[in-house]
């Protein structure tokens, strides 16, 4: 027999689907089946059941082999590494709960480190643009119920956010959108003919790296000025046509992804896209939303913002928060040899960073906290496996539209495994001892563990 846990939050992408059903064994130790999730989400749940899962910390030896160590030893090693570093980089945070993030940030403040999350190679440029010009945004629910023109700019949700189209943006029938996808116009802007592009009513396949020019051309078109014959490889007639569709929307939205945030211009592309949205609000109601990747990268920005005032790349080395992407961002710190220890939790820079940065991590004292074996854990001196957040332990997560949800525990973690929050609390307490200062007003380890 088996029991079914309903309304489970999927801890994979920023869409944060909240309608999953997970069948677990009666004793609550095994996941048998996952319903409603996309292939990636289901795999995340099922992967926690892998037979070869690492359940104890392991230290890399001189010869590259691993030696199992206790959690106590791992905590001591991590605390010593962080406390002795002049400027440790504490990177990741996007695949863990807000509770764990806040404890991690306390450690960073105590040791004088840098906290950076995956936005640094993802939507960090969007955050820069938002700080520069603001953002007119809305929730995904509003899009489901109201949007009749949906723009996907430089993103491919068919593959990266598989249930986004069916749950929120294109297919669902909402309160004012009773015809579902038949009542919606879908505009896709991408240099490649992606699977999302193939579904589009208007597909603008632009010249690579010319998003800024095309966005600017749309703004010129909104103002009734003339344009050059071709902008970004698109004829001016098509740009005027697209501008008319956008202006005549009842409620429109622009979703944007890595195609604009990490190509030429970066934050400027988003800046211009936000200004397009602002301009469109002269004619109709328009919103813009970032297609955030990791399920809780938005939460990481929210927690960092709450604690230090900046959403990523926060340098606490001199006892006050500084933020300047280009200087305090992980890759710049690694490239310029400005950090002397690396702590990674809830992300995989080994897979996502340029190889030059990965080599730098491999040469530094490093700790990776991750339930999986990843390229990062392979190059780190110490790998600390932890329970899966959203599967084996609950916690607060933020959806891509900045709405918080409480993820659920559906199954017990393997015997004796620690959670992110427990491990971080122990490290925080030990770092506090080493640095001779107890963090003020923070709950003790015992309270966090509920003991």
């Amino acid at each position, binding site marked *: 027999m088996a029991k079914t846990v309903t309304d489970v939050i999927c801890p994979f992408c920023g869409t944060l689907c909240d309608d999953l059903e997970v069948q677990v064994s009666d004793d609550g130790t095994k996941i048998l089946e996952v319903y409603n999730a996309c292939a990636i989400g289901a795999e995340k749940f099922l992967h926690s059941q892998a037979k070869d899962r690492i359940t104890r910390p392991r230290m890399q030896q001189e010869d590259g082999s691993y030696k199992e160590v206790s959690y106590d030893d791992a905590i001591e090693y991590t605390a010593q590494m962080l406390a002795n*570093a*002049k*400027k440790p980089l504490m990177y990741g945070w996007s695949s863990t709960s807000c509770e764990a993030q806040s404890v991690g940030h306390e450690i960073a403040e105590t*040791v*004088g*480190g840098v906290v950076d999350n995956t936005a640094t190679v993802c939507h960090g440029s969007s955050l*820069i643009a938002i*700080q*520069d010009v603001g953002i007119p945004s809305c929730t995904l629910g509003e899009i489901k119920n109201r949007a009749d023109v949906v723009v996907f700019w430089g993103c491919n949700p068919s593959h990266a956010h598989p249930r986004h189209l069916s749950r929120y943006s294109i297919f669902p029938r909402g309160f004012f959108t009773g015809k579902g996808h038949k009542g919606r116009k879908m505009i896709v802007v991408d240099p490649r003919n992606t699977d999302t592009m193939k579904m589009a009513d208007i597909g603008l396949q632009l010249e690579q790296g*010319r998003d*800024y*020019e095309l966005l*600017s*051309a*749309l*703004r*010129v078109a*909104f*103002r009734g*000025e*003339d*344009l*050059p014959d071709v*902008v970004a490889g698109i004829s001016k007639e098509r740009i005027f046509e697209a501008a008319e569709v956008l202006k005549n929307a009842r409620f429109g939205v622009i979703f944007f992804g890595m195609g604009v945030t990490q190509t*030429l*211009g970066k934050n*400027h592309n988003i*800046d*211009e896209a936000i*200004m397009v949205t602002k*301009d469109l609000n002269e004619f109709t109601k328009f919103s813009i939303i970032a297609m955030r990747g990791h399920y809780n990268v938005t939460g990481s920005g929210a927690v960092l913002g709450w604690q230090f005032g900046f959403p990523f790349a926060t340098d606490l*080395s*001199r*006892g006050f928060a500084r*933020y*300047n*992407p*280009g*200087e305090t961002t992980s890759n710049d710190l690694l490239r*310029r*040899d*400005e*950090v*002397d220890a690396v702590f990674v939790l809830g992300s995989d820079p080994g897979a996502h960073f340029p190889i030059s940065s990965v080599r730098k991590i491999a040469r530094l004292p490093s700790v990776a906290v991750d339930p999986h074996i990843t390229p990062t854990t392979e190059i780190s001196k110490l790998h600390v496996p932890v329970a899966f957040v959203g599967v084996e332990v609950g916690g607060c997560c933020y959806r891509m539209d900045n709405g918080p949800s409480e993820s659920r525990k559906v199954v017990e973690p393997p015997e004796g495994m620690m959670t992110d929050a427990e491990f971080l609390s122990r490290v925080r307490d030990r770092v506090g001892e080493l640095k001779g200062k107890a963090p003020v007003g923070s709950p003790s380890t015992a309270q966090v563990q509920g003991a």
Partner: protein
Amino acid sequence: METVTLTIKKAPTLYLEAEATTPDALAGKSLDQIRALPVYMGNEEFTLGEFFEIAGAPGATAADTRVVVKGDVSRVKYLGMKMSAGELVIESNADMYVGAWMTGGTITAKGNVDSFAGTGMKGGELTIMGNAGNYIGSAYRGDWRGMQGGRIRVKGNVGSDTGYFMNGGEIVIEGNADVHVGTHAEGGKIVIKGNAKSRLGGQMVEGTIVLLGTVDVMMPGFKYVRDEEIEVDGEKMTLSLYVGDLGERHRKRKGEPIYGKLYLRPVKAGEDAAAREARLARAREAKKARFAPPEGSASA
């Protein structure tokens, strides 16, 4: 004018933050007091004397003080930050934030400087003999007030985002500039004697950009008005005036919108298409070169 010489004696293991190297910080102090000034590496504080050999004597006021920084300071940040008077000479390459938020005095950097030089600058003169990084004369993150006054001259090339949110002062670049020059500019003047890449004057509200070389891709929101004779860096020349960015907001005077001004060399008919073709050909060549197998490697 009195001179203090700071000679770096050991390279920092990571980098050094040395904002206490301005004439303002050193003026009126004894050499021992100067040696005790703080510098920072990560979360640790050191003294200026631990990293620098200090000689000479400062003047009584910042205006009377000349600071000469010798040795390799390519890992030393904040040189000349918030300086208000006097003179700073950097003999070699310097790291980020040279002359950031400076309000007066002169800085001469004889080598290259990294990014964020002249960030939020309000006055004074900053001369860079080598190349400069990104964000020269720009706003600090989140600030809408970039460079507001003073003059920056770069003899070499500059990176991207020159004059971001600039609203006063003048930047002269004798070499080439990377993308995004004068983005969000609301005033000030940028002269580029070399070539520029794309996004020149994007989202420009007001201000002036003069480009004497070529531009890879023009922003769509600039329209040609007329040819004008103007003075560029002391030289009179006739250039074509374009106004824009037409997609951006513009205030009006007597009912007429005030645009940002972009001056380019007059183009002959048909040259635009030829330039585009040449650019695409260059890009194809570059791509081919990038994917070509390295010489001497066996084909696997």
